[in-house]
């Protein structure tokens, strides 16, 4: 009884570094109300809810339980998914499974985080093996720095190449009123910002953010009645590649390579660089914008820096990446993957306003966890065959 699935509405908060004016469920409620309004639906129309965040960030467990006043989950089927950084993308994949199964027609998907409420690096470290990983690991930035270092050694890239990606994303954020950081920076400013972990400068990485996002998915039986031009889900993929951090192939994101190949195969995409129209990637630091697009197969190994320098991923380029300003401009972690999904959906639906890429047929969104695991979604204008 598998059904095709479409996104029919999205909503998100105006993300900020600190939202002391609302608690978790109130923050969630803002995003939910906007998604319902976008789809022109009422809470009574929603058949089930998928919600998630990284609960060790706030130190409050079971958001599926305590947020029901804000989420609309009172006396409805509600389930929590939490997978670290990928959470926002995983809740979307979970919603896709629920609707695709034919058991629910309209599912509300919620991702949220209040990163201001705890020490992010300390909390991330607790996600790693206490005996083998924690002695030297220093949160996501340390792992990302090791990846960038390996990539530079392997392909001869430089920190200027990374900085160019940060300049791009921060420029794109100027078009997105929901982004937390909206300030253009120059290449020189990125390179002159404090070195956090070689080769990563402060302006190469994401901030900490409070924010929520909600997405409504509907089955093919009702989707086009709710929304004449919905965003169809063409496929999803999730991959993990290691048990301990030292098992990974540093300089390559194996999970991205394997997952994206699954998506291209499902959709019959032969040249993703030419066939995709826009990418919203969970790219929490600049070098990921080089390495990971090679793993997606957009360009060959070591070719990303030149491709980026030539402007191909800027708003007017061959394949705009992160029109929203991406994760470098805004990172409410449990919401971040779902924001990518919502932004990709808005691009397909033609609702992306000042950051709209013209004539989007295929869009790609992803979630990134940890270090080194990846979830992803392929979105399309046309109903999948």
């Amino acid at each position, binding site marked *: 009884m598998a059904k095709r699935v479409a996104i029919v509405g999205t909503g998100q908060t105006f993300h900020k570094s600190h939202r002391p004016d609302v608690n978790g469920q109130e923050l969630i409620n803002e995003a939910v109300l906007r998604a319902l309004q976008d789809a022109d639906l009422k809470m009574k129309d929603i058949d089930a809810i998928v919600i998630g965040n990284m609960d060790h960030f706030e130190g409050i467990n079971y958001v599926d339980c305590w947020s029901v006043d804000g989420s609309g989950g009172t006396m409805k089927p509600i389930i929590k998914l939490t997978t670290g950084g990928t959470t926002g993308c995983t809740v979307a994949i979970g919603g896709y499974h629920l609707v695709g199964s034919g058991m629910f027609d309209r599912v509300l998907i919620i991702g949220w985080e209040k990163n201001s409420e705890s020490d992010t690096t300390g909390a991330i470290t607790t996600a790693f093996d206490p005996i083998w990983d924690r002695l030297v690991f220093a949160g996501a930035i340390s792992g990302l720095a090791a990846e960038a270092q390996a990539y530079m*050694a*392997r392909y001869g890239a430089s920190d200027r190449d990374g900085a160019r990606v940060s300049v791009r994303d921060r420029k794109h954020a100027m078009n997105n009123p929901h982004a937390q950081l909206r300030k253009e920076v120059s290449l020189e400013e990125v390179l002159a910002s*404090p070195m956090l972990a*070689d080769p990563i400068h402060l302006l190469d990485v994401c901030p900490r953010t409070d924010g929520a996002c909600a997405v409504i998915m509907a089955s093919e039986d009702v989707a086009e009645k709710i929304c004449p031009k919905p965003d169809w889900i063409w496929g999803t993929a999730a991959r993990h590649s290691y048990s301990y951090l030292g*098992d990974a192939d540093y300089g390559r994101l194996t999970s991205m390579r394997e997952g994206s190949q699954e998506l291209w195969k499902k959709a019959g995409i032969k040249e993703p660089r030419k066939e995709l129209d826009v990418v919203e990637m969970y790219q929490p630091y600049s070098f990921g914008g080089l390495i990971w697009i090679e793993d997606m197969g957009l360009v060959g190994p070591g070719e990303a820096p030149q491709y980026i320098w030539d402007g191909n991923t800027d708003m007017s380029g061959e394949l705009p990446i992160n029109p929203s300003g991406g994760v470098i401009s805004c990172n409410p972690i449990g919401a971040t993957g779902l924001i990518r999904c919502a932004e990709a959906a808005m691009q397909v639906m033609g609702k992306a306003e000042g950051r709209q890429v013209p004539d989007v047929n295929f869009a790609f969104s992803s979630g990134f966890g940890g270090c080194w695991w990846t979830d992803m979604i392929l979105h399309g204008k046309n109903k999948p065959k």
Partner: protein
Amino acid sequence: MVEKEHIIIESGDAVQPFAYSVGMHGSRFFAEIRDNKRFLGVKCPRCGKVYIPPRGVCGDCFVEMKEWVEVGPKGVIGTFTILRYAFIDPETGAQKPVPYGYGFIRFDGADTLFQHYINIEDETKIRVGARVEPVFARERKGSIRDIEYFKVID
């Protein structure tokens, strides 16, 4: 402006202990370091990959591994970073002393990388591919801290 006061909730001197098992492979690994300053990995019977830390199953092949192989103690830097930003170490509750070298060491004979400190006295020597060797703690207790750090020997 009204001065804001936060309610602080803390555990004081109370401990909230976790008791993790390292498993039989990890136990043997640490006993070998403590007693003989030797590093042991395990080898997959199907793909031949040598794993550090040792473990019971090769995830790629999903088969049990039983063959122990000595690796190192010398190796190369597989990748690394130098941590320069201050953060609270959840292991200790105190600020981690920075800067420090975070190394992913590829022991001679191993396929995966072993994470530990790298001595960064001379930062110009720290590069991917540099040869390193471990410096052991004088008093070894069978833990990851039985190695103080790795140093570049090029």
